[in-house]
Structure formats: structure tokens, C-alpha cells
């Protein structure tokens, strides 16, 4: 076996990854972008390996993106959609992990509504675990695909000013992006009403703004976050119209950012809530579809890096 390029078994979060590790994953993903753009996409890097998409929360795009990534690398992919509400947590989650482990699964791609659940599960299996989103904690492949999108367009991450706007309090995308961008030398801002910012967020190394025009001033990247429906009506913000008025991205607010600033959104978008429809569809500025494309390449890179240099799961440690 050659020396693994990425000396980790799991990808549970961005926090703790070094700049070299992130660069390794992004470089590998760059190669897969080109592979995916060619006609024949079927590889055999992971031929004979088994990967399960284990989703305890609804997802279409992330699950599909992982499924495509695994299949294009030649692995056998199985989707398991589990309703978290029907599962009592703790013991049952571990039971599920042990059960799947006994089937000699090589990798589990796991999404779970509770922060830390994926990390708990990773302690109980012999194969690799990739975090596809745990609660409000991390969504590492989203941050990587965002970074790849930025790097391919801007040529670098170092020194860029990135404004992350919206529901930071409940966003795993925001946390993973903050860790990644800080690690890679970008300047990170968060812009939101105080009700949508967690306490002590500045301790994660971000500048905090409550005014879009100030927060977007001279930004290279404007990253919008999705606002969940249940938070729109009085509890965290008074109304959709007030939220859009002060925190929705429109042409007027975008004028504060650099003229070539890029707009990003992890999807799915609420048009007219956090982002103006025209801007979302602006091919010059909006990176939203590129992000989706980069997602498959990044997930191929992650599966490759975690699994290709490693023996398949024989049940032995």
C-alpha cells in the first residue's frame, strides 16, 4: 500500500484540519472536476467498496451528490433514509452503527439532526465516516465545495474577505466555512440580526456585523445562508418582509461589496427571503450552480482520499 495522501480515516469536520490537508482535498477535487466534465465518468478507484448514505434527516442534493460521487468512483452505493423521529437516540444510533459495521461497510456518509451524532457513530465502526451534516455543528463537504468554487474563480482563498450572511446561529454550513476560511487565511465576517447569531461567535475568529451595507463593504464573496421556515414568523425575526428588507441580498445591498464580488448559497434557496430572485439567477455573480457542480467533485475527492489508500473493512482494527 502506498502512503495515504490524506492520513485520516474519517472526515467529521473542518475544525482541526490543517491548510495542507485542505489543499490536498481541493487539488484532488480539481482533477475530478475535469473528469466529471468528460463523457466517460466511470472510474474504478473504489471498485468493490461499499458505501452507505445514512441520512437521519431529509436531503436531496447532498445525498444525490454523494451517491453520484461514489458511483463515479466505482463503489457500490446504498441509500438508507432513516426518520430520526422514529428512532430513540443514543443506544439505537449506536446499534445501527454496529449493525452496519457487521456488514463490512467501507464507508458511511452520515447526516443527523443532532450535533455530535456523527462523531459518536464514528467511534463504533471500522470503516470511514464522512459527516454530511450534524445538527448545527459541521458540514465539511459543503465548506470544501464552497472553497473550491471560490478558489477556481478567484485563484486563491488567502486574503479574501468573505461575508457570511443570515441564520448563522443554526447553520452548520456557516461553522464549517468559518473554520475553513480562517484556516486558509481569508477574512471572515458574519452579518445577521442578533437573534440569528450564537453567543460568542466572534471567538471563532469572525468580525460581527448587524448591517448588511457595513458587513458587505468591500467583500470579495457574499455567502447567503438559508433561513428555515419555522424561524421566519416572530420567534427569531418578525416577518419575511422585514427580513428581506434588512438582511435579504438585493442589488442595492450588493453595491457595498466589491464590483466583482461573487454570490454563493448552499441551497435550497428561499427566493425573496434571503436572496432576490434576479441576483440568484445572475450568471455573472451567482455561483449557486457552480457550487452544485463542485459538490460532486469534492465528494469524490473526499471518498478517494479517505478510502483509496486504505484496506477494505475486514472487521479487524
Amino acid at each position: 500500500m502506498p502512503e495515504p495522501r490524506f492520513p485520516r480515516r474519517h472526515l467529521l469536520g473542518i475544525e482541526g484540519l490543517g491548510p495542507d490537508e485542505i489543499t490536498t482535498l481541493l487539488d484532488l477535487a480539481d482533477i475530478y472536476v475535469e473528469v466529471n466534465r468528460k463523457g466517460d465518468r466511470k472510474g474504478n478507484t473504489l471498485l468493490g467498496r461499499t458505501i452507505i448514505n445514512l441520512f437521519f434527516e431529509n436531503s436531496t442534493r447532498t445525498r444525490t451528490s454523494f451517491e453520484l460521487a461514489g458511483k463515479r468512483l466505482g463503489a457500490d452505493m446504498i441509500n438508507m433514509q432513516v426518520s430520526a423521529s422514529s428512532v430513540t437516540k443514543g443506544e439505537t444510533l449506536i446499534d445501527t452503527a454496529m449493525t452496519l459495521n457487521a456488514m463490512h461497510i467501507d464507508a458511511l456518509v452520515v447526516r443527523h439532526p443532532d450535533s455530535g451524532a456523527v462523531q459518536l457513530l464514528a467511534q463504533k465502526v471500522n470503516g470511514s465516516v464522512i459527516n454530511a451534516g450534524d445538527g448545527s455543528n459541521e458540514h465539511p463537504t459543503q465548506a470544501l465545495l464552497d472553497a473550491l468554487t471560490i478558489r477556481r474563480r478567484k485563484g486563491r482563498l488567502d486574503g479574501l474577505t468573505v461575508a457570511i450572511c443570515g441564520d448563522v446561529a443554526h447553520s452548520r454550513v456557516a461553522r464549517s466555512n468559518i473554520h475553513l476560511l480562517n484556516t486558509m487565511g481569508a477574512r471572515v465576517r458574519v452579518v445577521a440580526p442578533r437573534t440569528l447569531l450564537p453567543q460568542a461567535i466572534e471567538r471563532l475568529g469572525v468580525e460581527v456585523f448587524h448591517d448588511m451595507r457595513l458587513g458587505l463593504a468591500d467583500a470579495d464573496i457574499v455567502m447567503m445562508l438559508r433561513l428555515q421556515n419555522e424561524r421566519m414568523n416572530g420567534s427569531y425575526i418578525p416577518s419575511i418582509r422585514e427580513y428581506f428588507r434588512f438582511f435579504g441580498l438585493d442589488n442595492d445591498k450588493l453595491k457595498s461589496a466589491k464590483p466583482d464580488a461573487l454570490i454563493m448559497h448552499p441551497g435550497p434557496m428561499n427566493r425573496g427571503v434571503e436572496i432576490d430572485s434576479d441576483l440568484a439567477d445572475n450568471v455573472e455573480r451567482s455561483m449557486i450552480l457552480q457550487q452544485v457542480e463542485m459538490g460532486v467533485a469534492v465528494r469524490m475527492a473526499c471518498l478517494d482520499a479517505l478510502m483509496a489508500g486504505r484496506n477494505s473493512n475486514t472487521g479487524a482494527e
Partner: protein
Amino acid sequence: MAGGRIMTERKPPGRVAYINARLLDPATGLDAPGAVLTDGEIVMDVGPGLFQGGVPALVEVVDCKGACLAPGLVDMRVQLREPGEEHKETLRTGGEAAVAGGVTSMVCLPNTDPVIDDVAAVEFVARRARLIGLAKVYPYAAATRGLAGADLAEIGMLKEAGALAFTDGVHAIGDALVMRRVLAYAATFDAMIVQHPEEPSLAKGRLMNEGEMATRLGLSGIPIAAEAIMLDRDMRLVELTGARYHAAHLSTGAGADIIRRAKARGLPVTSDTAPPYFALNELAVGDWRTFAKLSPPLRSEEDRRAIVAAIVDGTIDVIASDHAPQDQDSKRQPFAQAAFGGVGLETLLPVTLELFHNGHLTLLQAIERLTWAPARLLGLAAGRLKAGASADLVVFDPDRAWKIDPEAHFHSKSKNSPFDGRPVQGKVLRTVVDGRCVYLGDG
């Protein structure tokens, strides 16, 4: 004596010289004989030396005959009942009561019907008051939608529309999580939250101050702890959120202590009280007298003295009328069924001047609590006697004695004053709004 005249003439104001006045401008500490010149809606000049060489021609002269000339009073807590309860008060009768009391700017609570919780309601009040042309009216807007204490109101848009600050009016925001979110959300827009500091579960269905008096009258009591608990809780939430917080109508020494400590710790906290809480105590409830049924309730003599001390040491920044008009049907009831509140616009100045006459405050300090202090903390361009300011003025005799007789004198539609029959000193002689005389006192 009669109640004075409301001036409704709308001819544009020219140049007016107010001479032989004792000028009071709390912001600069000016307290000296002198004169003021207004031109149109604006103060042109203020000074002890003004018109030493005589008043130029084509200027109307008002001889103040040694009376005080101060910025018009700024009353930061009134209920005007329009829209929705026009049988108790309207923007017009409230405006008349205001100028009769020397008040040129007032801030009204959002507890109307409909509630002032959307942009249209804010604009309705501002437009109506402008058309009436008496005292200027600035609305508070609701902090929670419909004053229901649950969902955030549109604080950002309401502030842009002109809401000065946000409050659930006569109700406390009882739920701690809701209050935390209200404060955090308001802080986003640097908006101030005004709280009625009373723990609702300790006050619900209860009638007067808890203690011996309530026990003797057989009335259920609201403990001092109701105010203290809410203020203690709110100080924690202010610390958590960094929001600007204003405690309305403090009534207890315990409450004042909490605000005093919070200020000493540097929290962005201010407070007001109303004349009943420094001039009356629970004995005014007497034989179930419903005009003395107020919210918060009149407290013990010890608390009254503590409120005076808190005004003197600056813990309490502002004195507001807490004007709460109630019609006869709401007050001529058994004590338990009578409505809370008392009218206050027309007694604000003389009762506050008791603090001056009793030696607690200087005249300038008393006027500061009624003008510059509320204007400053609300961010209102008012409460100053200086060139360039709006010509909103009050001329008053601080010593003139009279007896409060609501039925005979009050312009307010409602007569429910807890000060009914009280002999006071201090009489409004003239009230000027935007350079125009809107009220002339008798004599």
C-alpha cells in the same frame, strides 16, 4: 380660576420676542434673566443680553413679567386612546391637555385599537397629530405583535417609520425567552425597549400595594417583589444582549436600587417615574378610592421617599405623566372592577415642582427631568432652549398657587386624577409649539 384657552388659530407665526423672562435651559445650565427671539418655527436667539437696546419693530412682543421661560415639556409616557377608545381621549383632547400642561412633545403608548404594531398605524398617529397642530406626538410601537408577548414586532421597519422606541405598553413582556429575543433583535437596530417592570404572575388580578393597607381594605396585593423580580431578570437579559433598556414608572425603592446598581455597572439602562409615585403613597387609596388605583400601585411611604431619593441622585432620569385617561364608567366601579390609571398631563409640571419647592431639586434640575433628559434618551430634537431649535416653549410661574380641580379645569376628556383637590404651586401661562402660541393660561 378658569382653565385657560386653547389657541386654534393657524396663521403662520412671525417673529416673536419673549422679554423679561427667567430663562431655563437645563442642557447648558442656563438660569438667568433674559429674552428669546423666535422667527417662524425656530428659535433665533436666546440670551441674557438680548434686546438690551430695545426690541426692533415688526416683532411681536410677549412680556413674561419675570416668569420662567423653558423648553416645552417632553412627556415620554402617555396613553392617548386614539384609535379605538375615543370616548376616553382623542389625539385632539390629549393634545389640548398636553399644551395646557406645558407639554409640547409627548410619546404615546401603542396600546390602542388597533395596536400600533405596523407602519400604517405609526404613520396614522403622526399624521393625525400633525394636522391637529397642538403638542407633537411621537409613537412607541409594540415590541411584540399585537402586544401579545409572543412574536417579535417589525422593529426595523417600525423604527424607520418613526417609532421612537418599543414597548408592550401597560403589559410587561413576561416570558424571559421572548424578552431575550426582543432585546437582542432591538439591539440589532439600536432600538430601545421600554418595559413595564412587573412580574405578571405576581400581579395578575391583584389590585393595590401588598401590605397592611391592602389587608385592612380586604384588597389583594401586588408585592414590591413583582417589580424587583422583573427588573432583576431584565438586568440579566440586558447584560446578555447589550440592548438599550428603559424601565417605566418605577414605584419601589427595591426597583430603584436595581437600576442604580445596573447603572453603576455600566449597563445601558435608564428609568422614569411618574408624579404619583413620588407625591402620593398607598394611603391615597383611602376608602377604596378608584382614582388612586394605578398600575403599578401606589406604594408605601418608605417607597415614596426612596423614589424621591432616586430622582435626586439621577437613578431615575425622567419624570413622565403616565397619562392614563379612563372614562367615568371605568372608574365608578367597585375597586376590584375599576380600571387602572390616572390622567397626568395637566398636573405633571406643578406636582414635579413640589420637588423644587420642598428643596429636593433646584428649579433647573426639576425642569431637566421634564425636558432635556427624556429628549436625550429618546434621541428627540427637543428639550433645548437654544438658537436653531424648534420654538417649542413653555412660560410658567413656578410659585403661583392653585387647587387641582379636574372637572373645572382639565382639557383632557377624562377627569380621573389621583391629585383631585390637591393644592399645588406652578402654573402654565403660555405654551408655544413651532413658534405658535397654542395655549394661554389665565393671568
